[in-house]
Each structure stands twice: as C-alpha cells, then as structure tokens.
C-alpha cells in the first residue's frame, strides 16, 4: 500500500478554468486528477443536448482537458476520475477513446465507464410501483410534473468508481456520481478501506467536499484577508494528500498563487452546508463537527479527527423538468439622480406590461449598484451614484408573453426617463426554464454498472 496518495482537483464545475487540469498534472507529483463537472441543473442541459444529437449529452470540456493531460496519464501513470459523462457516459467514453487514439496514447488508456444512474427510462415503472419521488423541498409528488420531466438521475456513491479502478481503469468516467465520491473513491481504492470503515469513508468525503469546488478552497472567492491573497492570476488548485488512516493534508503545487490555510479551508467547508452533523452521502454520513484543522506549514493544512456513521437506505435523485420561460433585461441610468431615473423606468415598464395584459408568474425589478444583492439591508444609497443598472426579469408559462416583454425594454431608451445607455447587447433572450426536483429513492432500485475497456 502506498503511504500517501495525492488527489488533485482540476475542475470545480463545467465552465471552470481550462488551464487547471494541465497545471495540476504538470506542476508537481499527483496520483489522481479529479474533475467535477456536474451541478444540479447541468444534467438537464445535457439531456436537451442529447435529445438534439444522440452522440452528445456529456461535458465537452472534458475532451479538451484529457487532450491536455494525456502525456501525464500515458507516461507517469496519473489516473483521471471525472463525472463528465453527464447523461451519456458511453458517448463521452467514445470521444475520449478517439482523442486517445489521435494523441497516440490509446495503448496506455483503459477506460472505466460507470452507468446505472439514469432513471429516466424506468420512471413510469417506478411511479407505477409506488415510488412517489416526492419533491424533498415541497413534498409534491412527481406525478404533478411527470409530463414535463427531462432527466432523472440517482446520485451514485464511490463503489462503482472503486470497482473500475480495481479492474485497471486509469480514466474513469461517470454520470451522476456525487461530487465527493470522485475524491473519496481513489483513497478508498488505494488504501483498501472497507464499506463499513465509517470514519475513513467520512474523511474521504470531507476531502472531496474541500476540493470539489476547485480553487474555492485555495484562495479563490475567499473573503478573509482577500487583499493579501497572492497572485490569483496564477492560482494553484487544491491537492489532497491522503494517508491510509483517513487523515489528510490539503495543499497546492509550489510556485502557484492563492492560499491554503485554516481560513480558506473553513470557508469552503461551510459552503452549501446544511446540518453539519449529518452530511449525507450514499456511502456514509459524515459529521462535519468532528473535523479538526491545523496549519501545517505554508499552504498546508492538516485535517483529522473525522467521524462517520452508516448511511441511509435512500439515494438522492436529481430530476429536471420544464417550468416555463424567462427573460432578463437591463438598462443603465447615469448620474445625476441615477437611482430615481431607474426606479421611474421600472414603474413605466411595469405599467406598460400591465396595459398589454401580459401575465407572468413573477416580475422582478432590481437596481444593480443600489440594492440588487442586499435588498433593504444595503440601506439608503448615496444620492451621487455614478450609475444604476435597472434589471427586470419575468418568468411565466406563456412563451409569447415572455417574448413580448423582451420588446418593451429598448423603447425606454427614447421614450422613458433620461440619461440611459447600455443597451448595446440588444433584446433579452427568452430562456427555457429547466427546474430542479430533488427526490429520494430506495437504494435497492438502483444498480450501478461498470465497464472497463481499452481506448
């Protein structure tokens, strides 16, 4: 058994820094490159792409990332684990295989493909068998939106990834795996942690939570002492150095920017946190109140003491459904009395929408520069604001009405309050709203599948 395994985070979401994966494999020694592409609504976007083209439906950025790291995978034995498969892991694997052949490294690449998370083909059977798939937030049964469902995927845990690694895969592609499993699985595989080593599994999950958002734990988006965080242009993405006993260090490559200390790690630990005693995953429930952090040299934080307990009998299911249309438009009003002008424009616009008889589920008016993000907590704005952006959004079931709204902003430039600009972008775009429906399902209904094959 290796005494230490390094798992490096190279993407925190689909759209993250394209340079990061290559920098992680070239900046120093690592054993695993972990790439997290899937946010809650990503699956539905991918599902729509797959409907248009059956060869799509995965995170395309992953292919470019693989091209940039193939030399390290082929020559240095770095393994890659990514949930880039989205709703089409097979197509993703095909594209990676083709890229490996083009790069001349196909002989060194063994693909592991994890499927079984996709419940869409079985959805009606599951509902008929009495699985209500109630919305975890509202309690509503899925039947109320069944005809609008676009995708339904169970969050899989570490087991299938561990299986793929055990069978020799060095590039593991999953669909909807939990973000944290992508980091925990290689530690579990390397150290031989059992399915009931609760504390160690929980430690792997905490390691995953810390690095799953990429540089957000290594100086990115860090509020404390933000002015003093060095060289963000050259920010280092995080690396977990795991030990067999479940303790680990978080660090980053030398000669990179950013910062890793107890403060940057603490901020990331509380990110998207619910009840800290019960961080529920398919493998284990981790207790975030047990985590001990210590600064252990420059840009090194030691993490230990983590406790875990057995998981629940359910898996979370991420369901996406069509929920109407929306559009958001903006105009910029300049000094003097910028906010007053923007407010008047907002009222004029509303009155015109009303007179047109347009009905929406919601109309939202915000004043960027005065109160858009903090609302009334922002207090009275300075009377001398240089400019204020009027931002109006509408959402509704009727696409025509949302489209009509998008025609009502530009006229205000000439027939509304003065000192207005910033309309160069043209009419707002009407967007399909794809909403998220979190649900639970009995674990026994979901069977992960693993395929390992040559590239």
């Amino acid at each position, binding site marked *: 058994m290796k005494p230490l395994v390094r798992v490096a985070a190279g993407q925190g979401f689909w759209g993250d820094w394209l340079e990061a994966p290559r920098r992680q494999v070239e900046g120093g020694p690592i054993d695993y490159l972990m790439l997290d592409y899937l946010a809650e609504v990503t699956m539905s976007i991918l599902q729509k792409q797959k409907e248009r083209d059956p060869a799509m439906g995965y995170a395309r950025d992953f292919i470019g990332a693989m091209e940039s790291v193939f030399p390290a995978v082929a020559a240095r034995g770095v393994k890659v684990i990514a949930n880039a498969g989205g709703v089409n892991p097979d197509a993703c694997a095909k594209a990676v295989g083709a890229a490996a052949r083009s790069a001349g490294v196909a002989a060194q690449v063994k693909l592991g493909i994890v499927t079984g998370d996709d419940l869409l083909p079985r959805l009606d059977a599951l509902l008929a068998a009495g699985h209500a798939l109630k919305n975890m937030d509202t309690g509503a049964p899925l039947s109320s939106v069944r005809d609008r469902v676009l995708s339904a995927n169970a969050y899989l845990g570490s087991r299938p990834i561990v299986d793929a690694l055990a069978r020799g895969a060095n590039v593991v592609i999953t669909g909807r795996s939990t973000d944290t499993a992508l980091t925990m699985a290689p530690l579990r595989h390397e150290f031989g942690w059992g399915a009931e080593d609760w504390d160690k599994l929980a430690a792997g999950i905490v390691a995953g939570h810390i690095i799953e958002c990429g540089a957000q734990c290594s100086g990115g988006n860090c509020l404390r002492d933000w002015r003093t965080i060095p060289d963000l242009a050259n920010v280092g993405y995080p690396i977990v150095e795991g030990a067999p006993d479940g303790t680990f260090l978080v660090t980053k490559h030398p000669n990179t920017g950013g910062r890793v200390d107890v403060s940057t790690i603490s901020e990331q630990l509380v990110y998207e946190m619910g009840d800290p005693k019960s961080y529920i995953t398919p493998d284990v429930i981790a207790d975030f109140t047990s985590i001990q952090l210590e600064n252990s040299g420059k840009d090194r934080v030691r993490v230990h003491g983590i406790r875990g307990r057995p998981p629940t009998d359910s898996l979370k299911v991420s369901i996406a459904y069509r929920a109407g249309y929306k559009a958001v438009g903006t105009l910029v009003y300049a000094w003097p009395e910028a906010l007053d002008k923007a407010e008047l424009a907002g009222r004029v616009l509303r009155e015109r929408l009303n007179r047109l008889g347009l009905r929406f589920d919601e109309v939202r008016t915000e004043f960027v520069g005065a109160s858009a993000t903090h609302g009334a907590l922002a207090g009275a704005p300075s009377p001398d604001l240089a400019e204020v952006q009027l931002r109006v959004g509408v959402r509704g079931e009727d696409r025509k009405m949302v489209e009509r709204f998008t025609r009502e902003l530009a006229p205000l430039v000439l027939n509304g309050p003065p000192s207005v600009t910033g309309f160069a972008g043209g009419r707002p775009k009407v967007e399909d*709203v794809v909403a998220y429906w979190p649900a639970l399902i009995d674990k026994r209904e979901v069977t992960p599948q693993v395929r390992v094959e040559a590239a």
Partner: protein
Amino acid sequence: MKVRLLDLAHARSGDKGDTANVGVIAFKPEWFGVLRSHLTAERVAEHFKGEITGPVQRFELPNLLAVNFLLHGALGGGGTLSLKTDAQGKVFSTAMLRLVLDIPDGEAQALKLPEAPR
C-alpha cells in the same frame, strides 16, 4: 457596545434549492463565544426580515469556530426558477456581515471586540 459582525467574522454562502446557507466563522477562538451567545436564529431572522420568506435554522461547528445558518425562502424560488441577480445566494454571506450586535460593555472590553464606527 455596538459591534459589527464584519469585524468579528468572515463568511461564505451557497444554495440548496430556495434556501441559502451562510456559514459565519469567527476570526479568533475567543470570539466564537460571541457568535454562540449573541448570533442567535432570532437575531438573524430579524436581520433578514423582509428579505427572506421562510424560517431561519442555526447549527454550531465549534471545531471550525463557525455557526451555519439556513435561510429558507431566500432565493426567489431558487436555481433556474429565480430571477434574482444572486439566484444562488453567493453573497448572502456579506449581507449577513452587515449585522450589528449589541454586546454588554464588560464582555466587549474583556474580549477586546472592535467597536463599530459611529
């Protein structure tokens, strides 16, 4: 004595559906007690009154010198439904730090808390 949360703690926020979470982390171990006794769910609910439509839940993480809050009904429906600029609650953290606590003078002096600018 009036003390700004901004001077006692840093924070990060995120989303889960229509709920924003805000983790507030004390700058110094000895200041965590101030968060513990004064930064209550009721005080936070009062601070965000009119800005959120649901209740406030509170959890302590003494190991991180942190208190985690769940602000329900904070994100205009949440996720893709929301029309808010901050649909994912990313800057509820700094809205939280606008909160000003009233700390008994003796306690504030003993802990060397920075007084809010008048």
